[in-house]
């Protein structure tokens, strides 16, 4: 569509693009308002400049947070992977462990999902694929005990990075969030010397509910980053902009498929450009 002038119709169409990308009404309107201000301040008259301004606005939200890169230079490190059901936690752990192993790190994974049918076997298969060791108990065991064992084993073996799987849980389930908080406290108590990352895995097809997910998970286990999975689909994952502007937790990794190598560092420029493609 080509526009002759900067008018309400143009902004309405841009708003549609943002909302269709799951950025949400509030954040979308905020972005548009800021762009309108800039148009006035900078006396912009060229329609072609507007898209650039919108992108600039979005990138500044995404780059706002500090520490947006995963950093495993410190050994030992521990990564706790959390999120709602089916988001892609276990798969992400498979991919991440392989990547870290290829970087020469000694990696151990802990099968902290003792609840879902065959969750342990699923992680075991990923440990075979990536060639890293796994600590697992049996189905129905106490997840906190698995994580405890993982930590002791990581210490004994001089592991660089311990990555812990957890069962999927909806954030409105109080008892399950308490269970997660207990796991988090065990990590703090038993492994204070480790650098800690708590990654919330968010499926890119998720709509506005991800904001609430991030808030509640942050309270329960102080998430330090987001992994945005399934970006290989047609969903844009724009809700992370709303998450970022509300609780300021950066996206650190993206999942782009089901294979071992389908994990990338988050690139705000690429991400924002993709929202305006196709």
């Amino acid at each position, binding site marked *: 569509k080509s526009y002759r002038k900067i008018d309400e119709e143009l902004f309405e169409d841009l708003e549609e693009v943002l909302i269709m990308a*799951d950025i949400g009404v509030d954040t979308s309107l905020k972005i548009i308002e800021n762009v309108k201000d800039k148009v006035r301040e900078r006396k912009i008259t060229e329609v072609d400049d507007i898209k650039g301004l919108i992108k600039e606005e979005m990138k500044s939200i995404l780059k706002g947070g500090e520490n947006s890169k995963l950093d495993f230079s410190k050994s030992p490190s521990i990564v706790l992977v959390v999120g709602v059901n089916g988001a892609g936690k276990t798969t992400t752990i498979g991919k991440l462990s392989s990547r870290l192993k290829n970087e020469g790190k000694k990696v151990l994974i802990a099968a902290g999902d003792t609840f879902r049918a065959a969750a342990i076997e*699923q992680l075991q298969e990923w440990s075979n694929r990536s060639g890293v060791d796994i600590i697992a108990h049996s*189905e129905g065991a106490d997840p906190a005990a698995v994580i405890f064992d993982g930590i002791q084993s990581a210490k004994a073996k001089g592991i660089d990075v311990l990555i812990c799987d957890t069962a999927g849980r909806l954030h409105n389930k109080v008892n399950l969030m308490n269970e997660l908080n207990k796991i988090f406290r065990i990590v703090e108590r038993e492994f204070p010397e480790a650098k800690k990352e708590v990654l919330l895995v968010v499926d890119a097809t998720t709509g506005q509910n991800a904001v609430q997910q991030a808030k509640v998970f942050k309270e329960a286990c102080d998430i330090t980053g987001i992994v945005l999975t399934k970006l290989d*689909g047609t969903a844009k994952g724009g809700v992370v902009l709303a998450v970022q502007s509300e609780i300021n937790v950066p996206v650190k990794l993206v999942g782009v498929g089901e294979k071992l190598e389908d994990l990338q560092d988050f690139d705000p420029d690429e991400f924002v450009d993709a929202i305006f493609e196709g």
Partner: protein
Amino acid sequence: MVFEGLASKLQDTLDKLKSKGRLTEKDVDTAMREVKMALLEADVNFRVVKDFIKKVKERAIGQDVMGSLTPAQQVIKIVNEELTELMGKEESKINFASSPPTVIMMCGLQGAGKTTTSGKLGGLFKKKGKRPLLVACDVYRPAAIKQLEVVGEKLDIPVFSMGDKVDPVNIAKAGVEHGKKNGNDLIIIDTAGRLHIDDELMDELGNIKSEVQPQEILLVVDSMTGQDAVSVAETFDEKLDVNGVVLTKLDGDARGGAALSIKAVTGKPIKFIGMGEKLDQLEVFYPERMSSRILGM
């Protein structure tokens, strides 16, 4: 609740207008802005919202504000009626084959809840006297077959599998043969999660369909899905002509606007809802209950 109730917002908005007698275009416009926001915040698809608002506006303008109803109540009533109309009025059942077995095929994006729902459906109909068989056609996801086997064991329902080295189309066919031979009158085929834009895997589903001719093809959709629900549902429906939808994870606090979007673009009914991870947490879907949830009222 994350959002302020729409009802009270509408009340405030319309009370300010102090409209008497009839709803004017201006009253309705102001109210519709709130409704639009509420629907978008609930993840109803942008285009669906646009159409919906247009329809409600047309109906609401010029309406009498009758007796005890305030303008706000009047608008809410119209919104609710139109929403219920869109969602469908009554619950939809599973089509059973006139001569058994009935074959149900599950499909959907990765992680939506297909395997869990396969088990839940088996369990539900087993309780009603059917003899279900679960067929493991996900040969891709690590431990997918094992997952279905564990689910089957918990429910005491047999699971047919041929490992992960056989073409899923052949597994489906052999599964149905196996079920026929063993007197299973309900055969539920679990398939791998796939993206709607993955042509190869979408063709695989098409081939399973032509091979086993299921009575029911159910699209499993996560209730937390955002704007993309429309293109996902449209593509699965175009490819497979699905019979209905299962909306999962409604035990969460997502408003579930995807339900409305999917119904609006495909016309296919939502048949069941997933209300938890446990295998008995599957319920029949009642459309009118969904309207108030989506509106946050």
